[in-house]
């Protein structure tokens, strides 16, 4: 586990209070909600947007950020994060995880419930909420659908919803019982929150990588794509039957994408996300035997990646979310079969999107930003229109063209398990502002 970089303690917050008056000058505002891009300055007073206009004069005592050549966007949102607190603090904690988030331009995130203890009741939810206060990044803790994420008994969802739950998820486990899934979807309808589904049929023998020619040659145990799509097909049926709201997490297979495409044509209340690693990499990476490429769902084939690119473009995939899953190096630096699933994501979500989607023209910058700002907030019933007078300044400033080399030792996460180590990425976040706080890269 990494504790320090350059004498910075990674378990201490890395933000500062934002200046009383802050003027962002000479930049280009890119507003994915209004779908507009324009040259403008932004004046922030006491952490709140005071004015968005051209050529605002810097008053006395006003701090100025010269954003020439930079974009100013609504803060990014990652709706799939494992912060590991409580229970696995040697991998990450709320402070280190949110440090990583803001260094990736993320101002809001949804944390999954697979902590120890599991977030399946109000008391643990409130405890985590109280630990996540006073941070730059707004942490939305997502409680489990079922007690201990066992897929059997529903958590006290009404009370959890009343206490701020924006959605529910047993992430890490697929809900195996169709009856439980039906019950959860029907019950959640009362408060309009979606169920975030980790789609996996666990009746397949446990594997460590995608079933493909690569697993054949490597002799590795495998997870077929249908382990995911079967579960998605079932939940689409249930969602139609009960008129429920389902969001599919980390969709990885072309079969899944096609099922969701059909369901969306029917106008069912179905949304989905893809992770940066699933739109960037294929299972060919496993040939290195590096456990940096062991994740669940596993990396799939080029055909799947192509289908994901098309579905992103067509709007079938609504959201890009990281499934940020830190693991300490002593857990990852073992034989492939024995290593836990999961990779880091927060600090490379934006740059992976620029590098693998925007640069190769799979998506426009606007389309990409929509999937990391507007859409996740809409799905979780949060306000998606951030760039307006009177709202808390929740802003990310970035340089789209800046090149940098991903170095696992320099990431703010306590863990090292990035699948992009040593890759050259485009797109660098320079400032992240939220909740009256600012982070400068």
């Amino acid at each position, binding site marked *: 586990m990494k504790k320090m970089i350059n004498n910075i303690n990674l378990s201490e917050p890395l933000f500062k209070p934002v200046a009383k008056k802050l003027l962002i000058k000479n930049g280009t505002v890119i507003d994915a909600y209004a779908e507009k891009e324009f040259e403008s300055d932004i004046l922030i007073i006491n952490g709140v947007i005071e004015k968005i206009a051209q050529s605002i004069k810097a008053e006395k005592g006003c701090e100025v950020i010269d954003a020439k050549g930079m974009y100013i966007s609504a803060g990014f949102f990652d709706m799939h994060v494992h912060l590991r607190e409580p229970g696995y603090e040697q991998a990450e904690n709320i402070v280190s995880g949110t440090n990583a988030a803001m260094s990736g331009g993320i101002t809001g995130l949804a944390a999954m419930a697979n902590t120890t203890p599991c977030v399946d009741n109000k008391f643990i939810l409130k405890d985590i909420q109280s630990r996540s206060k006073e941070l730059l990044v707004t942490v939305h803790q997502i409680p489990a659908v079922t007690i201990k994420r066992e897929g059997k008994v529903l958590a006290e969802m009404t009370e959890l919803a009343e206490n701020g739950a924006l959605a529910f998820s047993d992430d890490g486990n697929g809900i195996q019982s169709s009856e439980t899934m039906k019950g959860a979807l029907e019950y959640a309808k009362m408060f309009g929150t979606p169920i975030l589904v980790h789609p996996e049929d666990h009746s397949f023998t446990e594997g460590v990588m995608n*079933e*493909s*020619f690569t*697993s*054949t*040659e*490597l*002799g*590795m145990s*495998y997870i077929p794509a249908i382990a995911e799509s079967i579960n998605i097909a079932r939940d689409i049926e249930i969602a139609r039957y009960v008129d429920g709201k389902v969001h599919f997490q980390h969709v990885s297979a072309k079969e899944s994408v096609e099922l969701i495409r059909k369901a969306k044509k029917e106008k069912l209340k179905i949304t989905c996300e893809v992770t940066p690693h699933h739109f960037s990499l294929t299972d060919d990476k496993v040939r290195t*035997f590096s456990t940096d490429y062991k994740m669940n769902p596993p990396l799939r084939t080029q055909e799947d990646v192509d289908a994901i690119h098309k579905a992103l473009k067509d709007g079938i995939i609504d959201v890009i979310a990281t499934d940020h899953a830190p693991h300490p190096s*002593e857990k990852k*630096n*073992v*034989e*492939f*079969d*024995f290593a836990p699933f999961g990779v880091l994501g927060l600090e490379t979500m934006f740059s992976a999107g620029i590098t693998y989607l925007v640069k190769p023209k799979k998506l426009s910058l606007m389309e990409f930003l929509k999937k990391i700002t507007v859409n996740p907030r809409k799905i979780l019933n949060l306000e998606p229109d951030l760039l307006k007078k009177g709202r808390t300044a929740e802003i990310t400033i970035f340089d789209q063209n800046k090149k940098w080399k991903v170095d696992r030792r320099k990431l703010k996460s306590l863990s090292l398990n990035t699948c992009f180590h040593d890759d050259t990425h485009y797109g660098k976040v320079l400032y992240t502002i939220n909740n009256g706080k600012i982070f400068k890269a």
Partner: protein
Amino acid sequence: MDDRLGDKQLLKIKHLLGIKGMCKEDLDLILKTSVSFKQILDTPNKKVAALKGITVVNMFFENSTRTKISFEMAEKRLSADVLNFAASSSSLKKGETLIDTAKNIEAMKIDMVVMRHSTPGAHKMLMDNLDSIIINAGDGAHEHPTQAILDLMTIVEHIPDLKGKRVTLVGDIVHSRVAMSNIHALKIFGAKVQVCGPSTLMPRDIEKMGVEVIYDLNEAIENSDVMNILRIQLERHVGASFPSLREYHNYWGITNEKLARAKNDILILHPGPMNRGVEIDDDVADGDHQVILDQVLNGVASRMAVLYLLSANIGGAK
């Protein structure tokens, strides 16, 4: 240096992790050297001093009797100092890591590591973390290169030119490192490779390795020059993979009756240990076509060759 051995030639590989990616010249050199060692094994003085002063550790994280004995025999015939380390793979999950275990052993000044492990690619971890020469004695269902070499040696003794000859691997292809290494080796030597068994034991897209898939054993027997019968792991499969051992034996077990339709000089190999009455019948296992005990002797000779040739890199593997 034993004067029964000629000048030592150098392999292009520094470690033996798998057959995939090896060149024909390396395999030819190993086969040629294996033949020399086999001749030495046929003389009263079976021992050579080739690895005197060299320490080899056999690390076996999976049960294995044959491969381990074969390596140990090869090492002793070469006069190496031999250290044996056995543990279950599951012990690695709980206790000391593989890297720590291996580094601890290496700290006692060893030169070569022979390892059997349940996880594909475990040997690459060793190679990345140790200075020793690494030899793969089987990693999961990935590769078992010395088995492929001894199989090749055995086949070539009867069929010197494999070009265009059809070799069929029968049985559990999906869980078989022997199958994978054999396919790579046989393709390098120009053989036509065929895999035969129930469809549930054929891994996905296996055809992309350039092999033909055939389900009907009778047809395979008719068109094959060589059949390599893989072991069925009794405990593993009955269930979703196939209905029963009875059905397996009826349709994919090699019997003399089925062999009646084979070419007269068909060769039958089995890497052992055999399940008599399941994948192979007694009368075939002890019959005229089998070369199973030749495989065992060739196993020692070819492992001697591998150890001997790779030892040239000791001290400079990186």
